């Protein structure tokens, strides 16, 4: 129970199946407050499904998902979970293509999310400052009025991270942030995530071992829907079972 109290995110015995296929199989995991965690695993290990469960997109068949020790995420929908303070970045960058960079950040900015609040919302000076800060962080200040759809792939990834920052969540779920990036970009992204992790809890799903190494954090290996190993990258890469899973027999 101490785990539960100290943890920000607590998964216990989570099972999800689709038409007989078990995407998650009795998965248990704890992410502590302020921790950055990397999750690796081969295709079909259940990484994305796990994200879906945490963010309310998929309901587990079994198991508990608790946030901040008291909120049962299995009872809430996406919007409510987002308001609790869980932000998610997708594997494929999804930004609002027909909005400007600025509007993308504006939409993500922490604040009231109701229909009428949005209808009558006016941009305050404080909000403008926060947007500027975020834009500076993700180095898109000079492209703020451009349509997000025109950004390069890497810039979209960064914009999406920027939206996460604007949302100011307690926990960030980041799905393959380095996919499709150049080496330089990858390194910068890793640096950015490390900076973010100073003030937030972060869960990163990643394939790229270099990137995970750059992050230098605790690693969880998923396989066939459950945790195979946990520890530092060096520890897990020495694990025979992990080697077997990754390299095959």
């Amino acid at each position: 129970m101490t785990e539960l109290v100290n943890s920000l995110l607590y998964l216990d015995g989570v099972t999800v199946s689709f038409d007989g296929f078990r995407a998650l199989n009795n998965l248990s995991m704890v992410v502590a407050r302020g921790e950055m965690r990397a999750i690796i695993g081969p295709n079909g290990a259940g990484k994305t499904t796990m994200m879906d469960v945490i963010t309310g997109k998929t309901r587990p068949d079994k198991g508990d998902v608790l946030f901040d020790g008291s909120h049962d995420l299995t009872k809430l929908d996406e919007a409510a979970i987002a308001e609790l303070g869980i932000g998610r970045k997708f594997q494929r960058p999804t930004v609002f293509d027909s909005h400007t960079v600025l509007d993308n950040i504006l939409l993500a900015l922490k604040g009231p999310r109701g229909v009428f609040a949005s209808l009558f919302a006016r941009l305050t000076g404080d909000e403008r400052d926060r947007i500027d800060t975020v834009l500076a962080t993700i180095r898109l200040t000079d492209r703020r009025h451009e349509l997000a759809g025109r950004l390069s792939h890497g810039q979209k990834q960064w914009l999406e991270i920027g939206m996460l920052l604007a949302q100011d969540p307690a926990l960030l779920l980041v799905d393959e942030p380095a996919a499709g990036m150049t080496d330089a970009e990858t390194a910068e992204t890793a640096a950015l995530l490390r900076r973010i992790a100073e003030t937030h809890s972060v869960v990163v799903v990643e394939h790229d071992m270099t990137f995970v190494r750059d992050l230098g954090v605790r690693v969880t290996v998923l396989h066939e829907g459950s945790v195979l190993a946990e520890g530092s990258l060096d520890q897990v890469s020495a694990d025979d079972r992990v080697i077997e899973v990754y390299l095959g027999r």
Partner: protein
Amino acid sequence: MARAMPLGLGRSGIAFLVIVAAAGVLVPFLNLATPVDSPWHVPTTTVVLFGKYLCFALLALSIDLVWGYCGILSLGHGAFFALGGYAMGMHLMREIGSRGVYGNPVLPDFMVFLNWKELPWYWYGFDQFWFAAIMALLVPGALAFVFGAFAFRSRVTGVYLSIITQAMTFALMLAFFRNDMGLGGNNGLTDFKDVLGFDLQQNATRCGLFALSAAALAAGFLVCRAIVSSKLGKVLVAVRDAESRTRFIGYRVEHFKLFVFTVSAMMAGLAGALYVPQVGIINPGEFAPANSIEAVIWVAVGGRGTLVGAALGARGRQRRQELVHRGASRALAVRARRAVHFRHAVPAEGAARPGRYPPRQAPGAAGGDAGPARNGR
């Protein structure tokens, strides 16, 4: 057609408003104040015809609001239009009073000869104009609210939503065709005499209605503009382009959809309410699924997601009707060709609006990699 997402009205928006306002003043003026043989005279036929188009334009506008800006393709908006029309028609029916052919002060003629003994409860209140006017907005709004609340909460999207909106308008059409509904069955409501004491056969009344329709269109345009240029409008576009993304940053998408769907239905209802006194009849044919599809085509032709274009697209109906006049087959061919032509236009459009249709990713289906369906609900 430039992608119009300015915070202000934009050049085309202002131009549109100026033209609508000018038409709303000039057409009635030229009809009433100039002699019939003057070259400046606008014949009554034209006033009635254009008045009709103004109503269609308002309907198109309401569809564009939900489709163009929120990605909800409603193939049942004709139902809201017709419901608004019926609300107004019921008032006009009550206005006839004892001037009906049987002289019954309460019951409309069709009820008299089908031996209805008393007025059904849902006809109460419609003798008051204000009540009918409220109902013309409220009934479509309420239907949209209830229908939308169910559909959006269950996350019925895309094609499924389009098809159940078709089913909705089809079911309503069948229901209104029934004489037992007490709304005139197939014949609908006709024989209107006057509205608020103005004789509907007077040109002055027609011109008044025309001006009113122009005003309603302008007001509808401003309302839509206000909505789409607010932060809410940005959320709507966000929903259209990447629905689950919007959810994950904390917006309760179903509420936004519901809001805009209801507003749109009320606009369609208003359009219907203005349409009925001008054409003098409302019948269940207005619920026909084909009508709703046609209205969507106006929007598609005029330019989805550009309010001005949608309103102008509705005028396409004029051309179609002129063609029908010359030969139905040609008209249908043209209409169909236009629908086909439209598909050619789309790729070009898409190219001009980068990212509008990202490759391999249909709008609305975004949300990162193909995640599993949310089950359990």
